[in-house]
């Protein structure tokens, strides 16, 4: 609006000038004080009328401003996730990182989780080739030592274009089930710390927001990239795009196949690795319902995925903008979900999703739905289900002078059913029927700028979990202060919580265990029950940070954070001994009296534990734009996590964890809770990237990602054992050669030095991958 008026004024002034050329003028355009945008709007004709001396001054200023703007672009891109309105990263009231799609492509990252290694504060561990475990800042594998399923990240909200891709079954993000690939990314915005106030529950440790590309070249274009190595094949069509003045249309597709670096499997209960063929039987022995034939092939395939996406963007006027995405995906990955016998299992997914975003002036609306079929653990009944997730958000940015108020309302509905896949009557499944969850929350965010230097934001959310009926609230407060134009101090306090997950709330699985051979009259059963009264996991976080813009080319960000996570669920076991009537075969006449049997029922139920995780850490990040074609970043996080109130259930664990001895009897009568340093989260982790374009046709990108030693404990061969992950540095290099405007090739080495050490406990070695790729743009 403002720039149109200025343009109009500028044109009017120039017209006046040329008409009254012969006479002395009083209204000479002030080229010396023009902004970059104004300069860009001058036509060639305007410029040809400017006296040479002034033209020279204008060009000088233009070039300097362009460089400045370019550096700003590199160092300080804009993002909309932190405040739900566009602002430069420098001004974001929360710790924020933006990864630009072009930088991701140049770096050679082959997948979205791998690309997250380019950002500070992210712990990314490769489990099998192409499958990663991603955590923001830490709090991973708490409580430790229990089933590996608590290593899963259920506290980070991942979204694609405002559509949450969080799966509510166990509460986590299945990265292989995202229908898009790196070629579809415009940028990834990461916000650290609780953000439920703006994004609903499950934005506990942070938000990773993937924003897809909008085509910008007119008319019809197509771009395809294929890249492969011995272990990996991938082809992605970034898009067949078609652009008209008001509509943009993009079709993209991708296919990827990644092979594991080994084809055997580690079995913790046996403390050794076995071949693929042996796993089925081992798993069936661990859980009688497991179908061993389901684990009979594809031992070497780590990941196979397909995706097709359709993007449609419509901007009929400046006030209204609509965008719609529809996607289909199918995937099969060998990942860590829950330990049966083996730690790795196949997870298969096939989904269709729809996403609508409408922006009308200051109103934002989003409606998204995903429907699909997921088999979270192939072979184990109860983990296969059909589901539907619906999400909607409505928000309004109301601005009055220095105050912006944003009321909002969000709702989510999830429906999961295992009916088509299990025999409900036998309680074979986990849910044995259909389970529904729903959430509604209203929120209000206030953003106030005082004296142009101090910015205060506050957000409060009041929410209701429809199933189970529970209220919750979340909040976020921040203050940021521009000490100087180039220095911004910030302080943040926030609280967020998870939502109920299907398994924890609705599990209802019952198993008849093999009969006890010593007592023919006894049977045993095992029930896994959910707990609708479970309090959601909650995190409180306090953070201070400072951002500095130095010498035009350097931007630094240092943040110190302290977070406390409580209400961890843990499986509690209880035993009940019942006398139950014996089931007699048909036709058998019972003698006098009913025969009863002794039945021992073990019930495993999720309960809130007293366990707390306290994390203190510092992340520092430096971005340098040495020149237009050379830029670098370096980042590192130091952290320390303490787990408190950990209940020790056996004396071996007690001795290992505390160094003291207590007999089993003592422990039973006097349960001990202990505090210890959680060493599963690496004390140090971070990375560096350099991108250098020495000539127009050549781009060299090098990146490194590293973490320090990690130690945790697990039950190996039915005994307490310490498990280690060695420190690792991963070097990557991607060289791109632009042969012509429409053809480029690249040589991409991931983990150049082929450091094979395992990154995730009890999973695969992850070595180097050396790929060649080609991109064709038409």
């Amino acid at each position, binding site marked *: 609006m403002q720039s149109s008026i200025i343009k109009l004024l500028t044109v009017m002034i120039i017209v006046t000038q040329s008409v009254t050329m012969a006479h002395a003028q009083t209204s000479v355009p002030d080229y010396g004080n023009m902004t970059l945008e104004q300069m860009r709007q001058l036509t060639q004709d305007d*410029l*040809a009328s400017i006296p040479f*001396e002034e033209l020279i001054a204008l060009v000088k200023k233009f070039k300097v401003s362009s460089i400045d703007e370019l550096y700003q*672009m590199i160092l300080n891109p804009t993002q909309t996730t932190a405040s739900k309105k566009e602002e430069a990263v420098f001004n974001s009231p929360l710790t924020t990182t933006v990864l630009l799609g072009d930088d991701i492509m140049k770096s050679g990252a082959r997948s979205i989780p791998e690309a997250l290694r380019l950002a500070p504060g992210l712990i990314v561990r490769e489990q099998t080739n192409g499958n990663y475990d991603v955590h923001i800042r830490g709090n991973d594998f708490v409580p430790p030592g229990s089933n590996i399923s608590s290593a899963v990240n259920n506290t980070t909200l991942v979204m694609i274009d405002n559509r949450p891709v969080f799966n509510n079954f166990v509460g986590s993000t299945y990265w292989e089930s995202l229908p898009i690939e790196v070629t579809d990314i415009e940028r990834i915005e990461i916000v650290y710390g609780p953000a439920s106030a703006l994004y609903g529950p499950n934005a506990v440790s942070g938000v990773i927001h993937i924003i897809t590309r909008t085509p910008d070249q007119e008319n019809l274009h197509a771009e395809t990239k294929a890249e492969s190595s011995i272990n990996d094949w991938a082809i992605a069509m970034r898009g067949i795009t078609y652009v008209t003045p008001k509509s943009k249309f993009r079709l993209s597709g991708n296919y990827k196949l990644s092979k594991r670096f080994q084809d055997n499997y580690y079995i913790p209960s046996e403390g050794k690795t076995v071949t693929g063929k042996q796993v089925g039987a081992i798993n069936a022995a661990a859980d009688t319902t497991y179908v061993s034939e389901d684990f009979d092939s594809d031992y070497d395939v780590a990941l196979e995925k397909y995706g097709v996406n359709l993007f449609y963007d419509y901007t009929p006027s400046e006030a209204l903008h609509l965008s719609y995405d529809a996607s289909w995906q199918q995937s099969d990955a060998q990942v860590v979900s829950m330990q049966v016998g083996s730690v790795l299992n196949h997870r298969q997914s096939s989904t269709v999703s729809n996403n609508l975003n409408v922006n009308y002036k200051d109103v934002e609306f989003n409606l998204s739905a995903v429907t699909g079929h997921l088999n979270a653990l192939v072979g184990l009944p109860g983990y296969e289900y059909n589901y539907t997730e619906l999400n909607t958000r409505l928000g309004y940015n109301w601005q009055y002078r220095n105050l912006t108020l944003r009321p909002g309302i969000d709702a989510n509905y999830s429906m999961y059913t295992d009916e088509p896949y299990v025999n409900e009557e036998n309680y074979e499944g986990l849910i044995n029927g259909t389970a529904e969850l729903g959430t509604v929350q209203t929120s209000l965010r206030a953003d106030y700028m005082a004296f142009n230097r101090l910015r205060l934001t506050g957000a409060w959310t009041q929410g209701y979990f429809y199933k189970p009926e529970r209220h919750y609230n979340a909040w976020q407060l921040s203050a940021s202060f521009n000490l100087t134009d180039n220095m911004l101090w910030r302080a943040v306090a926030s609280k967020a919580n998870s939502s109920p997950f299907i398994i924890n709330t609705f599990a209802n699985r019952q198993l008849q265990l093999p009969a006890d051979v010593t007592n023919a009259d006894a049977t045993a059963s095992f029930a896994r029950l959910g707990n609708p009264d479970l309090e959601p996991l909650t995190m409180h976080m306090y953070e201070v940070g400072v951002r500095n813009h130095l010498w035009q080319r350097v931007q630094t960000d240092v943040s110190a954070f302290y977070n406390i996570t409580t209400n961890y669920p843990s499986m509690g076991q209880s035993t009940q001994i019942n006398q139950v009537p014996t089931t007699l075969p048909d036709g058998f006449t019972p003698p006098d009296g009913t025969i009863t049997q002794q039945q021992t029922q073990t019930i495993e139920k999720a309960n809130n534990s007293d366990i707390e995780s306290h994390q203190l850490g510092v992340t520092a990040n430096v971005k340098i734009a040495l020149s237009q*074609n050379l830029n670098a970043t370096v980042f590192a996080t130091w952290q320390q996590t303490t787990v408190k109130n950990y209940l020790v259930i056996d004396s071996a664990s007690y001795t290992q964890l505390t160094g003291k001895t207590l007999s089993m009897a003592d422990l039973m009568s006097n349960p001990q809770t202990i505090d210890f340093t959680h060493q599963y989260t690496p004390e140090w982790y971070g990375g560096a990237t350099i991108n250098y374009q020495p000539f127009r046709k050549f781009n060299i990108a090098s990146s490194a990602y590293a973490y320090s030693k990690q130690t945790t404990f697990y039950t190996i061969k039915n005994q307490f054992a310490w498990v280690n992950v060695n420190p690792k540095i991963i070097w990557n290099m991607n060289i791109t050669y632009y042969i012509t405007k429409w053809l480029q090739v690249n040589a991409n080495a991931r983990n150049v030095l082929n450091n094979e050490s395992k990154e995730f406990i009890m999973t695969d070695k992850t070595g180097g991958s050396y790929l060649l790729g080609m991109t064709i743009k038409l």
Partner: protein
Amino acid sequence: MGKIMLVLCLLTGSVTVFSQNYKFQALYVFNIAQNIQWPGAINHFTIGVVGSHDMANELTQIFKTRKLGSLPVVVKPIEMTIADITNCQLVYLGRGASSKLEALVPYVRTKPVLVVSDKTGLSGAGINMLDNASKLEFEIFPSIIKEQGLKVAGSLLNLGIVK
């Protein structure tokens, strides 16, 4: 909205960030030509452009509606041949062509053909453009221009780097 488009342009243009912005170079040539006097009576003015279609297009745009003094101007892409070059009043040499300037010099040294080269450190042409990411400047070689029979306006000497 414009800012977003700008951001997108800069993002997608990252490969082309090195391509010269001929828009401003063309304006400079236009202004330089206005400050130089050619000898004798000429009834049309031809600008020859060697090795740069972008530059030729930009110059054509400017001279569609403008004249040099009272002379209409024709802009045409030409080859690096003596015949083509000596038929023009002003010749612009693109980056690649500028490297071959030395071979050209003997043939134009005494002819009224203003040569504008485009390469840092080059001498032999009357005007040499310096166009990099952070600045656009031009060098003037008054002795070469004088030997060619051309006259430079004093004001131009104040605006360029005199060599």
